[in-house]
């Protein structure tokens, strides 16, 4: 590095160099680490250990009837290749879950955004409606599943309303399309509030002046929304999609209560299939391999979703 001629190599007045040895606060840091140890140990025991055991298990042919895991024979990647190449039921479950996720998430997004935009305006009973709209999110998935199972019964309220409207009722759980629709309706009812809540907070955080600037420049409300508000909302929208897609990949309770994956396997999601593999057929090793594939797939999906806004989200502010 070249230095200006009027600057000497070593400035005469300088900040004192730090003394060699332990940095100040090093001792307190190690005490802090000591305090963290029990927590770390518990997390190692209940999170990392089972994960490692499951990972090892997925490379074996172990079933509970074969005694201890050490008795099982190591099979390499056979479980994985079986799943990815031959197990059409698994591949179909993956595809079905993705379709279900795609349809539900899009509907939840559109409805959540619509509601959020509506809630930016002033109207009577807003605070009451706000609480009401958030309620579904707080109900246990099992309860939601059971409630909708009752609603969608052949002699249930949904069909009754359809009859009143002049439409013929449907055999919701006997027809694969209707069963699929019932799962999506349940899922959308349950989780639209989450989109609504995230998007509403996002909309509230959008600065006002760019919107006003666009209005002054002559933009219509639609143009303001499309060109100014939506781009600013983009990171929030993507985060909402990431949170929901992580959940929807694990979709289990509602489907279990509503259809048990039927009729046939027409509503069988990945989680339900893995559950059946592990706890109906006791193929725990094979199930573990399937679960790891789902984990890898989910990680890839989240990474893909976050890529466009990663720079924006990971910006250094301080």
């Amino acid at each position, binding site marked *: 590095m070249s230095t200006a001629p009027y600057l000497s190599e070593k400035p005469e007045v300088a900040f004192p160099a730090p003394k060699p040895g332990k940095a100040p606060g090093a001792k307190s840091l190690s005490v802090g680490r000591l305090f963290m140890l029990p927590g770390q140990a518990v997390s190692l025991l209940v999170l990392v250990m089972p994960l490692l055991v499951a990972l090892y298990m997925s490379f074996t042919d172990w079933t509970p009837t074969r005694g201890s895991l050490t008795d099982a024979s190591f099979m390499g990647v056979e479980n994985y290749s079986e799943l990815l190449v031959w197990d059409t039921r698994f591949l179909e479950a993956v595809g079905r879950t993705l379709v279900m996720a795609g349809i539900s998430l899009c509907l939840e997004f559109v409805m959540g955004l619509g509601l959020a935009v509506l809630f930016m305006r002033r109207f009577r009973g807003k605070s009451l409606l706000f609480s009401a709209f958030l309620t579904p999110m707080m109900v246990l998935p099992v309860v939601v599943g059971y409630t909708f199972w009752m609603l969608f019964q052949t002699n249930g309220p949904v069909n009754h309303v359809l009859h009143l409207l002049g439409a013929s009722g449907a055999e919701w759980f006997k027809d694969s399309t209707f069963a699929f629709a019932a799962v999506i309706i349940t899922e959308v009812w349950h989780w639209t509030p989450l989109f609504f809540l995230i998007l509403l907070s996002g909309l509230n955080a959008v600065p006002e002046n760019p919107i006003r*600037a*666009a209005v002054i420049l002559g933009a219509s409300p639609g143009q303001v929304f499309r060109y100014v508000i939506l*781009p*600013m909302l983009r990171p929030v929208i993507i985060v909402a999609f990431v949170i929901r897609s992580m959940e929807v990949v694990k979709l289990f309770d509602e489907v279990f209560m509503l259809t048990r994956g039927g009729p046939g396997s027409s509503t069988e999601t990945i989680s339900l299939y893995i559950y059946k593999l592990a706890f109906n057929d006791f193929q725990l090793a094979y199930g573990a391999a399937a679960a790891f594939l789902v984990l890898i797939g989910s990680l890839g999906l989240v990474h893909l979703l976050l890529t466009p806004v990663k720079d924006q989200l990971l910006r250094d502010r301080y």
Partner: protein
Amino acid sequence: MKVPKLELVDLRKEYAGGDVVAVDGINLSVDPGETLALLGPSGCGKSTALNMIVGLEQPTGGDIRVDGASVVAMPAGQRNIGLVFQDYAVFTSMTVRQNLAFGLKIRNMDRNSVNREVEKTAELLGMKDRLEAKASTLGGSELQRVAIGRTLVTKPSLLLLDEPLSNLEAPARLAMRQELRRLQQEIALTVVYVTHDQVEALSLADHIAVMSYGKIIQVEKTARIVEAPGHAGVAAFLGSPPMNILRGRINVENGRVRFTGYNLTFLLPACSIPDCCAAAQAGVMLSLGFRAEDLSLAGAGDGLAAGRVLDIEARGMDSIVSVDVRGTIMKSIVLSTSSVHEGETVGLTVAPDDIHIFDGWTGLRINERFHGNG
């Protein structure tokens, strides 16, 4: 394009059902091609006035006329009035080019014309090589240029600037002030400039309107408003430090004029100002103004009044000496502080011509500083 005239007629804005009056019936006229600074402390209603002119807020009463035609009923987007915000309000998800093109695109201008206009504006603002940069990567003064350019490209009939330099750091502010002066000269535009910074107002505006509590207390040519403020409120706001203002009454005693204010009384140099004596005859309440530059220090027994030096604030070329005159703080600017020490007693003198006299109740100026200037 014809440069229009802007008129505000009894413009009023109330909030909370009339409990809060943000703008209290202001009247203002800005001639074509003129730059008017709306100057006042924070919360005096200047930004509200600007928002009403541009159409972001609806007035409670009064009228806004551009070239004689009322624009009050017109939506903001149709008034063709540009506004540059204090925080720039640049669309950060877009590039500089997209920002500049925004106003033209939504007017459905064809792509070639949009590009031509955008390039022309970028050239004017010295941003031609930054056209493809994302707005989120720009620095403060660049964002300011984009904000100004985005407005100028749409060829507004009026340009409103809402504290456009206050978010910039000192060196950038100085450079941008020069830039704005250059732009004003290059593009003939009627400009209303809102600021609380008198240096900005003084360096950029042809006329200054000083606002206080929702009212305009004086509109005057920039040079004259500092020399002879027409209102005690303007005098107390302009200048660094602002004028010393003392409220009290004057009485004539044996041909000499005695001023009696709060806890303090002194003889004025002479009744050399006829208006001053007339006021004394009437016995009205007065506000006397002494500019810090005009107030000089003297020996303890000399001058108008004596006081104790409270504080000496060095400013480089000169210093501000605060003198406590029986509870009233008077400020004087002195070039050399070698003979002044904190805690010592000094006298304060002022030339008779440098006393500004205002009506104690209305705040309006009584004496005429420059004869013949009206």
